[in-house]
Structure formats: C-alpha cells, structure tokens
C-alpha cells in the first residue's frame, strides 16, 4: 500500500458488500416475492436485476434488495414492493428484468413512481 488512494479504492469496492450487514431505518427496501408462484413466473431474474442494477447505480448504501414469500396476488407475480421510509408502499406487478431497470432508474434514483407497472 503506497498511498491512501489505494486504500480508498479497496474501501469503496468493499463498502457495498459489507454495508449490507447492518440494519438502518433510513434505507429503502425493495422486496421481491419469491414464493413458488413468484419463482415460477420469473422472479429470480427480476431479483438479480435489482441486485445488480442497484449496485451499478452505486445506491446500495441507501437501498437494500431482499425477498419475501407469497404476497397473495399470485396471478400478478412477479411482484416487487418498494418501501421508502416515511412513504406509502409501492407495489409493482408482472415485473421483468427490463421493467426492473426502468424502476431502478426512475423510482429508486430519481424518486418518480413508474405508475404504469403498479398494482391498481
């Protein structure tokens, strides 16, 4: 290690990894329904798209992507819920990795709910 910059580079690389391991009330939670119904209709690629997309945008210190069981609306799977602290829960339905990328870009980064994919 010849410089502080090298140390900083390692820290930034690792922060997204280690940063997951604490609980914080200020983080936004993205919850993907991963019961049998969800998995059967393709929730796993959606989950992975969220995990990778959030990391790629560098917002993984503010957003955690996690999974849950059956939400009870099996015909609308894959379902993704976005819970921001102090705001109403937003439920996205029939998600795909492509739609996920749009939600990350518009909703998680810029704060605009993508109304056309939500449950009405």
């Amino acid at each position: 290690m010849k410089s502080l910059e090298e140390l900083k580079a390692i820290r930034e690389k690792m922060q997204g990894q280690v940063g997951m391991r604490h609980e914080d009330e200020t983080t936004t939670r993205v919850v993907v329904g991963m019961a049998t119904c969800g998995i059967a209709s393709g929730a796993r690629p959606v989950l992975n798209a969220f995990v990778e997309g959030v990391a790629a945008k560098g917002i993984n210190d503010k957003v955690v992507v996690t999974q849950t069981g059956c939400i009870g609306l099996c015909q609308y799977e894959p379902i993704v819920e976005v819970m921001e602290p102090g705001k109403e829960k937003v439920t996205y339905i029939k998600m795909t990795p492509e739609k996920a990328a749009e939600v990350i870009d518009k909703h998680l980064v810029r704060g605009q709910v993508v109304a056309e994919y939500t449950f009405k």
Partner: protein
Amino acid sequence: MYRSHVLVCGGTGCTSSGSQAIIEKLNFEIAKNGLDKEVQVVKTGCFGLCALGPIMIVYPEGTFYSMVKEADIEEIVSEHLVKGRVVSRLVYDETVTTEGVKSLQDTDFYRNQKRIALRNCGVINPENIEEYIGTGGYEALGKALTEMTPEQVIDTILASGLRGRGGAGFPTGRKWQMARNFVQDGGQKYVCCNADEGDPGAFMDRSVLEGDPHVVLEAMAIAGYAIGASQGYIYVRAEYPIAVKRLEIAINQAHEYGLLGKDIFGTGFDFDIGLRLGAGAFVCGEETALMTSIEGNRGEPRPRPPFPAVKGLFERPTILNNVETYANVPRIILNGAEWFAEMGTEKSKGTKVFALGGKINNTGLVEVPMGTTLRTIIEEIGGGIPNGKKFKAAQTGGPSGGCISAENLDVPIDYDNLIAIGSMMGSGGLIVMDEDNCMVDIAKFFLQFTVDESCGKCTPCRIGTRRLLEMLDKVTKGQATLEDLDRIEKLCYYIKDNSLCGLGQTAPNPVLSTLRYFKDEYIAHVVDKKCPAGVCKDLLSYEIDKEKCIGCGMCARQCPASAISKTDYTAPGKKLPALAIDPEKCVKCGACMAQCKFGAISKK
C-alpha cells in the same frame, strides 16, 4: 455482487458447537440450489450471544437464527434463501413479536450495548483484510501517518481519557507519552500487545482477536508511530488456536497490502509485528513477566521501577497494552477524542467489554458504556438468572477481583467505583452467582487458582497464599474458629502489602471482598458448622425421609459409594421397605437426590 450474506459465527464458542460443519453444509446446499452466485456465506467472529450458538444471521433481512443444527440447513436454504420465507421456529425467540420479526438491535441483549471494541466482531470475515478495509479499516493509520505528528496522536489518546482495559486502568496516553519522551537516544523501542488472557471466565480479548484481528495490528502500528518504535510483539496464549491462526493470516495479509513492513503509505514509517505464544502461565499476563517471557526467559516478574516505558523489552523503552485497549484506538483517531470522551463516566471514558458467565441466561460477550449498572447488565442484557433463582453476587476481575453483592447492584460500573466497593475491573470477566453458590467456596476456588499459578519468586505470594488456602479449607470443613477469621484477614493484608507483582498483590481480593460482604456465611461455617448454600460437602448430610420413601431402590442404584441400603421399616401404604443412607460411607455427591422422583431425599 451477492444479494444476500449469510453470516455464521466462527468464534470459539460456536465452533465448539459445530459451526464449521454448518458452513460446509450451507455451501453445499446453496450450490445445490444454484444460488452460489447470489448468496455469500461469511465466517465471522463472535456475535456475543454465545449461549445460543451456533449463531447465523441472514442479511439484508437481518434474520437471527440461533442454536442452528446441521440438519436445519436444508430447510433454511430451501425456504429462506430460495423462497424468502423465514424459518420462524429457528429464529431467536426474543426477536419474534406478534407483529412479526423485530430487529436484533431492539432485543434486550443488544439494545443496551454500545459496540466500539467489538464493532466488527460478528460482522466481517476476519480472514479477509478487504472486509476490514471496507468498514474503514487502516484509515486511522493513514490519517495518523499523513495528517498527524506523533505528539498529536499521543495528545488525542490522552484527551480521549482511554484507560488500560487489562485491569489496572492506567491512562493509555500517559504510557505512550512516557515511552516517547523518557529515552530519546534514537535506538529501538517496542510496542507490545498483551493477549495473555488468563482470568477464569474471561474471553473478550480472544473474541476481538478472533473476530477482528486487524484492529489490533492497526492500533499497534499507530502506537509505534506515536512512540517511535518500528517493532511490535503480540504475546498470545497458545491455548487460543483460532486467535493465533487468524492473527497469522492477518499479519501476512497486512504485509501483502503493504500495511505492515517498510515505508507504509509512502511516509517512510516502518513497522513490523511478531507473534509470541505463551505456554499458559497466568503470571505471564503481568507486564514485566510477559516481557521476560518474550525475551526467551522463564516468565517471572521483576520489581518496578524501572517501568517498561523506560526500560522494558530487551532493556529498551516499551509500551504494553491490552487487546481491548488497542481495539479502541483506531476509532478514537478517526472520530476524535471528544467523541470518545462523551461516553462513560467522569474518570472512565468509553465502553467496556464484559464476558458474562455463571448463573445467567445470556452467557456471552457484551459491550456497554462505562457507568452502566450491574443491574442493567444482569437483568436486561443478561436476561436474568435461570430457574427463578435469586441473585447473590457477581464476581468481577477474576482471581484479582472481588465480589459485588446485591446492595451494590445499582452502582455505576467504572474503574474507581469498583475499587471503592472492594472489587476491580480486571480484564472484564463477570461471573454471576445465585443463592446456590457458597461464597467461602468461591473465595477458595479463586485462591486455589492463584496458589497454582504463583510463580514462586517471592515468599509472600508463594507461601502466603498457600497458608491462606489452608485456613479457608479449615473453614469449609467446619474446623475453623472465629480467631482464624481474624488471622485470615491479617494474612490477606500482609500478602497484598509485600508481594512483588500484581498477581500476589491482588490474590487476596476474592477472600477480602467475600469477608466484607458475606461475613455471615463465614460465621455460619465456623460457629454453626453449616454451609447455608449447601455446597461445602463436609458440612452436609443427605437423609431419606422414611415416610415418603417407596423403596424403589433407584437411589441405591445411582450411589457410587454403595451407601444406601434397605431398612426394616415400611411406611403405611407403601409396599417395600424404606431405604437409608449410611453417613459413614456417603460421599455427598447428590446423585441419589437427583434420581429420587418422590422428593424423599433432602440435603441438610
């Protein structure tokens, strides 16, 4: 990029209850389900709640599984990791509420804690330096080397009020200042780390070394910069194999990344650390004995002065700090002295780690701000005393400390208050005792330990503690007189005043403090020839109530001394003759009483 991290405790406690097999099974099941690119298994250090091991936490949800068995892994992987359904029967029940699973930080065990020394324990993989760097590791060293002068480092530590966590509580900054200033001949100085944790029931240093070894290396390098040393030694007990292994890995990795060795951060500062394994003598935790042992000689103390800061290892200026003390240093450098000094009491700043053991529900490792009361630690964090028993005393400071009785439960714990009530901080072992513990027996236990561990160099310790033990033995056998109690007390003070090192000077503390708070128990042994807690075997007798005995003979079958035989009395309504214990043959093991289902056997 992993979407989920499964943290499994790899500390000594959980390893001994099988966490290694759990990790292997987890990796196997995760691969079988095709999740090996999505879920990462991390072997960490101690989470603190050792009583519930093996422990496993799944992030980002923060689900806390306790007492996990290898057979549960398949279910956890297929339900939780694949489908996102928490396996609630395995979740730590404190976190389960009617509204679902609550955060671990809100449980009684964690809520009152403040983790500074233990901040990375149970969070990072101790065998991966990059995870340590990811939590801000080695930034304090970078800051010290590039932005601060050695004097500023020492001033920061001084202003923080950090005191030695090994027991005596000497101000750390003062120690560093002395080592820097007293000898300035440009020669070698040394930075040593005391990891020879020997108190029965203390395991906080082990947990730091196992869970976060790099924090110790970083702090030692900072100390080296502050006092002008380029060589450090960690003296660690060979009985801590996991700690030794992780320290070796950590030192090698730090070398690889250039965080130890020559020209660190390109500042021209050189620092290296060597490991020295202790062979297990308790006296080697005493600073002069420890340094003598590093030099390759028999670990015996020597008189002070000269103090190590002037003439220590290899007759050169040396500082010696405890593991937990070092674990606080990087955070103080990064966050500033004021941040640290805000926590704690007037003269004891920061936090203290305690190893909770004995009659307590949550056996484990806790870190609380100085000034927390014993009541909070025992009743809230520790979860109280098992089986509805009553608290009698807590022993702090191991064989050098004393007992705290129920009347002092609300005293804020810090260095000075503990000394005022006749105990001491020690390294932080905290053993809880209930009404079934005999205080004379406890004093005898700790004294037996110091008798065994006395190095024999000075007479007051070598012979004095042995005579003291013999007198205590008389008390527990019911052969002592009230004059003996006075003689015990007198000998205690003699040993304290005349011993060469800390071992002898503190050895009588367990006796003195029990004499002070539990004199009535000593008197019961001497005058009434009774042990109120029913521990001292020579003062006990077991009896069978012939009216209750049904003559089943279960007790006789258990008796290792064949002391139980039939009588010719049969109680009304019973079919077989009652049994009786022959007091001449009875060894008072209590096996018969534990076996009897009819409550016919009692202890007097």
